[in-house]
């Protein structure tokens, strides 16, 4: 099942919104996370089993991602729901030893089996392709494969990891030899300031695309916590993007897993998705575009102005899913890249028009963050591949 998967969240109503989105055909399933959904239901938080059942009843795919790469980050301490899953054995946290890995993976697989979810093996956040940590990840993956031959595999790396050039390629060769039927790939952000995607590291994101391309030659690839930033991965071979409505769903945000003094959920409530720009702009910006040229505003948004948060959630997912599917139906990788290039070219023209007509409302920095950085990463990947 390709398209858009919704990441887990802790907002009241989250699971109901998920099943509605699936029922409305704007999302294709959910990632359940032990950080957001408890194993045993508590007030206002249904259990993983209940959520899986309702998502499946709505026709959605359920993936239980143990998020080990988040749990092992140094600052992670939001473990109230997480600990109810009892994912670690007596050997303790970590995937440094075969015992730790075996105990952890056995527990994850047992929960996935109970939830009727695919077996998805965990990973750590990788910073270098050639390091003890990356070797441990492969060792853990081999243990997982020994337990369940057809298990899916997680892969999570920082920008430094994706930037590692030939060393990354060599490591991906070792990963491909695991022959996982599906990969869930995540870009680890060390820090997330706001909802605007940070794809200015062209080399790293071209490396990500190259990796997705390589893995997708044999396997399904899902790009987790990606939203619009994941479209370049769909062009290079992924078939599904992880997204949602809150910042912690659209990007991998370490603060999601950390209890801090500023503990509010990052809600992008005052934003409106602009499908023609492949961007999410502030609602006052959307209003200004609407006042300036209602006809063009409609075309740029890709639908009527969403009058409520619920409508914006649906609008965003519908626009995102439409682009994912439009790329996915292309026959080969060259056509996939061409499809997205065309959309970035159109977005560039829309941005130029808006920047010229509403210079204090739509800024060149918006165009760079939402369109140029992505287009440059796509171009760097495509040039390397002669696509």
């Amino acid at each position, binding site marked *: 099942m390709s398209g858009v998967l919704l990441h887990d969240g802790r907002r009241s109503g989250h699971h109901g919104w998920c099943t509605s989105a699936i029922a409305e055909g704007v999302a294709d399933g959910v990632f359940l996370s032990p950080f957001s959904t408890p194993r045993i239901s508590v007030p206002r938080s249904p259990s993983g089993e209940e959520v899986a059942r309702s998502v499946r009843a709505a026709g959605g795919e359920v993936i239980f991602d143990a998020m080990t790469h988040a749990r092992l980050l140094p600052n992670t301490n939001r473990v109230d729901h997480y600990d109810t899953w009892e994912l670690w054995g007596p050997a303790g946290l970590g995937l440094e030893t075969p015992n730790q890995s075996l105990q952890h993976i056995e527990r994850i697989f047992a929960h996935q089996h109970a939830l009727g979810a695919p077996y998805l093996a965990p990973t750590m956040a990788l910073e270098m392709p*050639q390091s003890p940590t990356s070797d441990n990840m492969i060792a853990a993956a081999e243990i997982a494969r020994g337990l369940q031959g057809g298990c899916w595999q997680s892969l999570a790396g920082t920008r430094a990891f994706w930037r590692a050039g*030939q*060393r990354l*390629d*060599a490591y*991906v*060769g*070792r*990963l*491909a*030899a695991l*022959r996982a039927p599906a990969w869930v790939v995540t870009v680890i952000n060390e820090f997330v300031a706001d909802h605007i995607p940070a794809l200015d590291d062209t080399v790293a994101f071209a490396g990500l695309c*190259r990796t997705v391309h*390589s*893995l997708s*030659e044999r396997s399904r690839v899902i790009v987790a916590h990606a939203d619009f930033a994941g479209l370049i991965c769909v062009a290079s071979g992924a078939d599904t993007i992880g997204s949602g409505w809150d910042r912690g769903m659209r990007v991998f945000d370490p603060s999601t897993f950390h209890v801090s003094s500023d503990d509010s959920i990052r809600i992008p409530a005052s934003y409106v998705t602009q499908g023609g720009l492949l961007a999410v702009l502030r609602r006052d910006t959307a209003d200004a575009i609407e006042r300036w040229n209602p006809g063009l505003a409609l075309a740029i948004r890709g639908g009527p102005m969403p009058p409520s948060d619920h409508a914006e959630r649906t609008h965003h997912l519908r626009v995102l899913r439409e682009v994912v599917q439009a790329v996915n139906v292309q026959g080969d990788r060259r056509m996939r890249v061409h499809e997205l290039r065309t959309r970035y070219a159109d977005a560039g023209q829309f941005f130029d028009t808006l920047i010229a007509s509403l210079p204090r409302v739509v800024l060149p920095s918006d165009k760079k963050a939402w369109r140029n950085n992505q287009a440059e990463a796509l171009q760097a990947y495509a040039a390397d591949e002669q696509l």
Partner: protein
Amino acid sequence: MTPQEIIDTAVAALGVESVTPLVQGGQKFVLRATLSGSDVVVKIVPLPTGPAGDIVRERARREVELLAAVDSDRVVKVLSESVEIGERPDAVAWVEEYLDGNDLSQCMATPWSDDRAFRLLADIARGLQACHDLDVVHRDLSPGNVRQLANERYVLMDPGLARHLAKTALTGTYQPGTAGFRSPEHVPGGDPTPASDIFSLGILAFCARTGRFPVDPSGSESEYFKRLVNDQVPPIQTIDPSVGDDLASVIDRCLRRQPARRYLDGAELITDLEKIGR
């Protein structure tokens, strides 16, 4: 011990007869002999003194152990245990089956036909599959390590630098492989995998079919390594348009710079060859 004393002691220890030298010099003596009436080859590896001798001895022991474990008619068969010669010891020796024909290095003077290149690919892929199934990487697939038999079938030899993926490398920082036949993972800092053997097999087939190296090994080693790591080998049909589409597709895929995009091991290559009736 003198070389002759080593040979005499090895011949006696291994119980072979009718001994004649095949190759002498370099790192080993290779003798033709008979064992219980059958033609065999005796290999004797002199051991240097000091720690280097321990490494050579372990490598030879591993070669014999590996050959004994591999069950394929596309990999040379070992017929004895490795025997240590002398007190120190001064050498190790063992017996292998005798293979007629020639090393590939003596058979590549003129470009091959597509059919012959396919036979090389299919036979050596089967030999590699037997190694890769045991999690063993050959790491030095080159013309000197492939035998063309009189019936134009091919057999893999000399996995003396092979490495069990689950065991620590013996070679430290030494990079295995033969210039011209290395993969991008053979470059210092890299770690050859089964897909690296596939790359080297692709080079063998490319060279056999076109008479040219796909990655030019001339110039300094650092320049060669840079080309290996950075350059994608051009499609073989751009070098010789007469190469058939099927063969070109297989060789080009063997020679993808990124290991994940090659055949990952001998088994995957065989599956593809069988799909196209090879």
